[in-house]
């Protein structure tokens, strides 16, 4: 898994690439929680390069979503690959996350 963090307008843009699984989910958890602790409350996760997620990755997304909801923040996810979208649908995550087709829609929406 690769992570790239940048700032776009008033969003912290996190681009996550590769596989998000049991062996590395804690890295994403740590990075994003650090961003939140550092004051980022609007996080935008670009998932266009993410091609695999397991329940440990879903767990991290739920932790982040809950944490941001608690501080009136926002989490937006864009460009889920079809396989990832299917896992979101099965898990009921499609209805609890703000999903956008592409980065532009996510930044406007």
């Amino acid at each position, binding site marked *: 898994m690769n992570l790239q963090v940048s700032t776009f307008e008033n969003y912290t843009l996190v681009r996550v690439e590769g*596989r998000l*699984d*049991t*062996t590395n989910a804690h890295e994403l958890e740590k990075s994003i929680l650090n961003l939140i602790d550092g004051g980022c409350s609007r996080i935008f996760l670009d998932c266009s390069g993410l*091609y*695999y997620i*397991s*329940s*440990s990755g*879903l*767990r991290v997304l*739920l*932790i982040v*979503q*809950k944490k941001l*909801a608690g501080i009136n923040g926002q989490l937006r996810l864009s460009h889920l690959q079809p*396989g990832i979208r299917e*896992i979101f649908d*099965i*898990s*009921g995550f499609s*209805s*609890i996350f703000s999903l956008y087709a592409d980065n532009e829609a996510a930044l406007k929406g």
Partner: protein
Amino acid sequence: MSEYRDERTLLLNNQLDEIPLVVTYLDQLGEDWGLSEALISSLNLVLEEALSNIILYGYDDKLLHTITLYFSRSGNELLISITDDGHYYDPTEKEDPDITLPVEDRPIGGLGIFLIKRIMDKVEYQRKENKNILMLKKKLEP
């Protein structure tokens, strides 16, 4: 199991860093057995969920254990069985999470077994000779 034509066995240690081996193994299996990329990706997820549960929660000691993965294909059915010598644990007894709950009420975790059950067509458990055997079946598209 004599009716099964194609069979393979993979032995793993009870270490999380063995999981990437499964990825490589499944890619090869998919190529050899002509399985779709989408199916291989689903099987990847199913095996990661099952194996990480066993490795993280299945043992009462810190010793090295072997987990046996057995794959077989007969006609349009794929069977995967996972055998471990950890303590008794029947994942099929685990209650499904309520996936309609709003975010504030959703518990953290508990999705792994549910994903396995939703992706595979049949999930069965047996306890035999002090071993857990999880049998996973999936119909193959013709």
